[in-house]
């Protein structure tokens, strides 16, 4: 399958995503320049981390007007799998492909460390190979990861099972101490109603090789490969 990794001016985690998709899990991968409108037959779109447009105005606010985003939105509307990582998640929120918004971290600090996430939902292309409740360890590096939505939206997202990842302790407890940024309900990642668009603040592409400290994130890329292979697995693998 083919991964398309969007590159905005200021994206800086595009190469990590390319490395994992091409060299670690062995699929086709290419970069999609933000000014182009050709997704080049990609089967999965990744919006990588970084500082698109320098985070000017608001994180992800200017990137949403890039020509490529019209095509990404159309691709998502057709059911194509889209993964937004960190700044990519922020772009998806600003574009409205995912609900909610990001505030500055409650601590007012740029948080750069490994965190634990509990996988809440396995019914997305990026988590279908991961057992529900499994805890993944991967790094965050952000200043604006404080996920916010009004109460009505939060209730609806929760009720529809669209909170995909929650910050947790290593053994899967949800508490304030494990929340690195003040995000509502420890939300680290969510999906859309159709469940094909997923955004998360942590970086699975920096946790896909044991040599980097954790390869827990690799399962997300393996999952979407399986999803695009068309076959439905009989059961999730831990």
């Amino acid at each position, binding site marked *: 399958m083919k991964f398309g990794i969007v590159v905005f001016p200021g994206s800086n985690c595009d190469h990590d995503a390319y490395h994992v998709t091409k060299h670690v899990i062995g699929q086709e991968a290419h970069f999609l320049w933000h000014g182009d409108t050709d997704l080049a037959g990609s089967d999965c779109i990744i919006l990588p981390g970084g500082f698109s447009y320098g985070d000017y*105005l*608001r994180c992800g*606010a200017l990137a949403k*007007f890039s020509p490529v985003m019209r095509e990404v939105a159309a691709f998502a509307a057709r059911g194509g799998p889209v993964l937004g990582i960190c700044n990519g998640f922020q772009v998806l929120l*600003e574009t409205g492909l995912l609900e*909610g*918004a990001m*505030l*500055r*971290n*409650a*601590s*007012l600090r740029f948080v750069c460390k490994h965190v634990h996430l509990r996988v809440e939902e396995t019914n997305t292309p990026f988590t279908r190979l991961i057992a529900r409740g499994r805890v993944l360890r991967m790094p965050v590096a952000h200043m604006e990861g404080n996920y*916010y*939505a*009004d109460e009505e939206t939060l209730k609806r997202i929760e009720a529809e099972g669209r909170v995909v990842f929650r910050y947790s302790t290593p053994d899967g407890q949800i508490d304030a101490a494990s929340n690195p940024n*003040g995000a509502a309900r420890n939300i680290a990642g969510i999906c859309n109603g159709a469940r094909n668009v997923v955004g998360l603040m942590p970086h699975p592409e920096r946790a896909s090789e044991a040599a980097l400290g954790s390869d827990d994130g690799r399962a997300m890329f393996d999952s979407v490969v399986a999803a695009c292979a068309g076959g439905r697995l009989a059961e999730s693998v831990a």
Partner: protein
Amino acid sequence: MKTHRVRVIVTLKSVVLDPQGQAIHQVIDGLGTAHVQDVRQGKVFDLALDAESPQAALLTAEQLARNVLSNPILETFACSLQ
């Protein structure tokens, strides 16, 4: 067509936590020279835009404020002709 100046002020909705405003508030408290109840930080955009009339300029500014300059989930805005 004339060039009109419109000022757009974007502020966080009152229900949204403002940690930056709180940090500023703490520092002001530390000065001990003023008794401040609350501080919330916003943004000012000054637009110089071409329009047929001041009213048209305001309308355009409101559109830009809604679609670009503010995030309606978090923020409200006010436009005024300068």
